[in-house]
């Protein structure tokens, strides 16, 4: 693995990420912390993001239920209006007898259904949603531009990472010093070797001007330099090693501190998840009450059945016949004597 303080984030390639479950979280693709280990500097920011998302999600959930409540209410109101309007029309119509009576009662079936749906709407608006909003308010208190809770977590994370970051910087520094020492030593060695070579050449009389290039003094200087460089390597390496060791020692402490804070965020998130589940259950219940085994609908059903029994075409016809038909008393012309 390359240096700690990466500037470029490589695309996900580690086995953990390739085992992603089917549940696609769109945020994964744009997540800047993705591909980084949690303990790496700044990687905790995604935890803070999750906390904040919780607020937005709670908002979304409430809005969604609100829309549903509106739909139900609109439906209920339309049904009520329908009932009212047509019962009016019916009363002004030509209809008569039990037929009219039964019809009138059936037009009232708009009422119980409207009631059921407006109750549903009310349960959402007056119970479920305020609950949700209240919960959100309690858990996501604001403080200026942030949420108190996330600010708290952030502070704690920063605190925990402070000394660790310093350590990482130290390591980085030591490493670069060690590397420059290595490079310097390499150069010094090369220079020394060159001068030895020329000396050798001189002794074999191969190269004439090699004499001018090296003198005993210069060679000594170079040898000294190389020596110093080699010692420098050892020194910086030791320092680098020490820094690494220090990190190794600090690691458990650092890990556990970070983990503790993280666990708190986990608990915070779990609370949200649990609450959402509760909310879903409540929603399910509200819908079930409105539809299954609903006492209002049962009553409506019973009333319906009773109404149908009242319907009596024969009775209606007889009534009509008595009032307008052949059973009415017709006046028949009679002999009318002249009266003075």
């Amino acid at each position, binding site marked *: 693995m390359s240096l700690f303080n990466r500037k470029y984030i490589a695309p996900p390639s580690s086995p953990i990420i390739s085992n992603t479950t089917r549940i696609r979280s769109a945020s994964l693709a744009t997540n800047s912390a993705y591909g980084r280990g*949690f303990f790496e500097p700044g990687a905790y920011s995604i935890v803070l993001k999750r906390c904040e998302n919780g607020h937005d999600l709670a908002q979304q959930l409430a809005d969604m239920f609100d829309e549903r409540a509106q739909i139900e209410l609109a439906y209920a109101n339309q049904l009520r209006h329908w009932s009212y309007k047509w019962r009016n029309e019916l009363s002004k119509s*030509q209809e008569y007898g039990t037929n009219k009576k039964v019809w009138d009662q059936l037009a009232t079936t708009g009422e119980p259904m409207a009631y059921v749906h407006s109750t549903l709407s009310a349960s959402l608006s007056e119970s479920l949603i305020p609950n949700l909003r209240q919960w959100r308010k309690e858990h996501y208190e604001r403080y200026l531009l942030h949420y108190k809770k996330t600010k708290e977590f952030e502070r704690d994370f920063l605190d925990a990472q402070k000394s660790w970051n310093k350590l990482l910087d130290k390591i980085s520094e030591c490493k670069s010093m060690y590397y420059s020492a290595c490079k310097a030593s390499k150069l010094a060695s090369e220079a020394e070797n060159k001068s030895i070579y020329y000396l050798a050449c001189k002794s074999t009389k191969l190269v004439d001007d090699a004499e001018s290039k090296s003198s005993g003094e210069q060679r000594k200087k170079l040898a000294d330099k190389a020596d110093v460089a080699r010692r420098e390597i050892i020194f910086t390496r030791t320092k680098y090693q020490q820094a690494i060791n220090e990190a190794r020692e600090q690691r458990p402490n650092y890990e556990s501190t970070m983990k503790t804070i993280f666990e708190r965020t986990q608990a915070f998130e779990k609370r949200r998840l649990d609450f959402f589940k509760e909310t879903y259950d409540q929603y399910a219940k509200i819908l079930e009450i409105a539809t299954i085994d609903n006492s209002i609908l049962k009553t409506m059903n019973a009333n*319906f059945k009773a109404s149908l029994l009242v*319907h009596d075409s024969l009775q209606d016809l007889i009534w009509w016949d008595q009032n307008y038909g052949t059973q*009415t008393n017709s006046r028949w012309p009679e002999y009318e004597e002249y009266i003075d």
Partner: protein
Amino acid sequence: MNQVQCIFPQGQTTPERVLSNPWYDKGFCEPNQYKAAIDRCKGGYESCELFIEIFSERARIEREYISNLEKWSAASIKEISQSKEFGTNKKAWIESIRASKEIGSTHGDIVQRLQENVIDKMVSYKKENYGKSILHVKKIKEFERDFEQAQKSWIKLLDKINKSRRDYQDAQRLLKKAETAEKIIESDRGAEEEQKSQMKLSVSTYKKQSEATRSKYQQNIEDMKNTRPNYENSMKEVLDRTHAFERRRLTQFKTLFAALHQALIIEKDSHLLTMTDLFNKSAAAHDAEKDIQWWNSHFGSDTNTAWPSFEELKD
């Protein structure tokens, strides 16, 4: 006969009251009283139309509700899919919406039953029984014609009776006048024989006339008495046909009311069972712990952290 302007009966649930109903309190066989039967037929036609209108609107309301639910479901699911939610929580959220969508399907069933078993049936009933021909409903026109036909000769007879009654009563009046005048003249010493005899003549003329008109009048009444059973029967026959027509209508309404009942009742609706099932499944699948673990392994403390290690310089 003066035409009576019929004011429709004030609508009330049974029993209808008399109020300003001009058909009321007159016998069916009296002239033009059959119009009550015609009005009933017309009323029946309007009732069918009213029925169709009412329940079509109900269906429209249901359809609007269903469409709103569907739009809401689709939009919500899309939004959630694109949201920052994750894990089984996200799934449970989506499934909850899917489950609640079942109510839309339940209402879809209601609308279908309403449309097919109630509204459409009434539409075809109306078409069959109240077929129109330009301005009027054929059947009703038929009844009207038949009533008119049955009453035609009767009305003529009534007119005859009235006329002969008037003639007779006029004759009687004149007779009485003449008789009175005769008495006066008889007791008048100064009256001449001519006058007296003329008076006697006119009295006897009037008497004869009176006799004649009386017998005509009585004859007409007798004719009427003889014709009456026949007339009554013909009228009744037409009326019975209207009764049958109305009975059919009432029966149809009763059938459709029962169908309406079946349309609206959702007690045994299968979609609601599906809804409960989906809700239960989604609740069971919700696993906050699992979600927390998943998140932990992707972004949390279980991720592979790069720890500093001694890195030798590479050439």
